[in-house]
């Protein structure tokens, strides 16, 4: 009994330590975003001053808007392409070079971002594409598609193939069987893949700075260039807002996937 309680105290301590390690910096950042002082490291009482400044800073707002648009668009395209790739790889007939293809799909996962960014920049220059919103979006789609494919493929792999066969046996043409049985069952993975792609795109600095053009900076690029001139408390406020946005996205997505698994009836487009 004593030993049990000692162990549990140890667990509590290690949990607290781990969480502190992960979240203390973020917590401090959030607290300092409400700092009234102009100096980042000196506490001057509570205030919403820096939030006001952020909303008045049109360059910052523009960069945020750019980031959100890029993240939403690229996550959506990446989810579409990644899901199709995952389906082709796990459901298609075995074709020649299948292993090579699936290996190649995962290469961007381990490719250093600098190299991905540079190669995309060279491509866009070669194509003489005007750099801006679309080049960043395409670059982010390239980066995040493989993450979506990995998530969706692992779900497809654990799904029993005879479910689709049963659907076909009960009168569904192959595409219909996919839509009415497979898709509802892999929907949580698709949602998770989209979220992953969204946050990766929102977070990315390296690839975006290679592929963007003048006048279309994303939020990380903007923040980075501001910080180089010295940390303003306004950055804390922006970061807090980004954290809040990501937290909301995660909560919504996990609620959605829970709902889809418990109320599959409505999720199935019959």
């Amino acid at each position, binding site marked *: 009994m004593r030993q049990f309680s000692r162990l549990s105290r140890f667990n509590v301590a290690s949990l607290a330590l781990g969480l502190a390690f992960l979240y203390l910096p973020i917590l401090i950042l959030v607290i300092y975003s409400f700092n009234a002082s102009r100096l980042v490291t000196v506490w001057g009482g509570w205030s919403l001053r820096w939030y006001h400044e952020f909303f008045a800073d049109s360059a910052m707002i523009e960069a945020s808007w750019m980031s959100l648009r890029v993240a939403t668009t690229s996550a959506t395209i990446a989810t579409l392409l990644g899901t199709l790739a995952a389906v082709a790889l796990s459901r298609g007939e075995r074709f020649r070079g299948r292993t090579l293809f699936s290996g190649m799909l995962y290469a961007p996962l381990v490719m250093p971002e600098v190299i991905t960014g540079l190669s995309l920049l060279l491509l866009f220059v070669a194509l003489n594409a005007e750099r801006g919103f679309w080049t960043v979006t395409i670059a982010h789609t390239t980066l995040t598609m493989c993450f979506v494919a990995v998530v969706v493929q692992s779900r497809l792999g654990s799904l029993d193939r005879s479910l689709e066969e*049963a659907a076909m046996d009960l009168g569904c043409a192959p595409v219909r069987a996919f839509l009415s049985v497979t898709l509802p069952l892999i929907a949580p993975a698709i949602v998770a893949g989209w979220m992953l792609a969204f946050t990766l795109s929102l977070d990315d600095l390296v690839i975006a700075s290679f592929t963007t053009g003048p006048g279309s900076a994303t939020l990380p690029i903007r923040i980075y260039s501001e910080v180089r001139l010295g940390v303003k408390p306004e950055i804390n406020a922006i970061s807090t807002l980004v954290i809040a946005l990501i937290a909301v996205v995660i909560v919504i997505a996990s609620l959605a996937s829970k709902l889809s698994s418990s109320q599959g009836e409505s999720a199935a487009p019959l």
Partner: protein
Amino acid sequence: MTDELPKTDAVAGDSQPTGGEPLLRIENVAKRFGTFRAVDGVSLDIKAGEFFALLGPSGCGKTTLLRMLAGFEAPDEGRILLGGKDIAQALPHERPINMMFQNYALFPHLSVRDNIAFGLKRAGMGRADIATRVAEMIALVKLEGLEKRKPDQLSGGQRQRVALARALARRPQLLLLDEPLAALDKKLRESTQGELMELQRRLGMTFIIVTHDQEEAMTMADRIGVMNAGKLVQVAGPRELYEAPRSRWIAEFVGDINLFDAESKLRDGHRLVVGTRDAGTLVVAEPRQPVGESRFSVAIRPEKIKLSRRGPVSEAGREAAINRLDGVIADICYLGGTTTYKVKLDSGGLVQASVANSARLDVDAYSLNQHVVAWFTPDDCVVLPS
């Protein structure tokens, strides 16, 4: 009941077989996976209303054959005629055939009711008709009160019933069952066997079941097709399959059997006098198919062999017991209803005899190393080509 069968599929409709035409005709069907011949030239006719079992060891091609009937595999050669129409290349959803999967393949995101209604919705039935049919199916498989449950909230037996109801709901011309009872425990399996037979008789539907369990096949099926290495080796009723197997392999696969290799033979009227190495001289009834000069074995089922301490008593018994083998009990295996004795023959061979335990007290039982006489009649022996 079958006259309200919905004309749902392209192949259904007016293609009901007439007169002596079989419902299903499989003609010389073959399927290769790479160089492996999974199904190798199988031909088979199945009549409407028949309960047919495909029996064989794992990897014999029975599941591949079933999947070709369902449309999940296309045969490389041959034709599959359902009601006279070739469906060999038709897609699964174009066939008036439904299948019950080995692992049931219930849709985990749908309730019991929606699982059963799935095929009906696809068939374009009206909402009210679907509700009626689903209720009918739920009553048929006795799942009342569980309509709103999800598959993961059901027991194994309940899941099996949902799978059956879902496959039956479209009233297919042919129902395929892939090892439908393999996942159930023994008691439940036995009661479900009875229910399946009752259901098949009541609905007058044609069932094809795939199983590796010979007792299951014998219990349920009108006819059994035994498969080995992609070939259909014998098609017969349960009794004929057991009592008159066509080859040594079938005799050994279906039930237990004692086999004695023949070394010489002499014709004596309607009987053959066969010399064997392990059991001396045996007298057997002459087979319908003359054995000619080919090598053959004499086979006898363990329960056809009688044991006694001194051999048959009466004169009539002595006449029947031309085949009389002396030996000692080498092994005893008590199985409840029967006891299996292994008898070491004086001539060197080993014979297995199965004796019904018809008395509760063990007055009739034999003990180890006891001297016994094993005897059997010429008619109980089967001559099998080697």
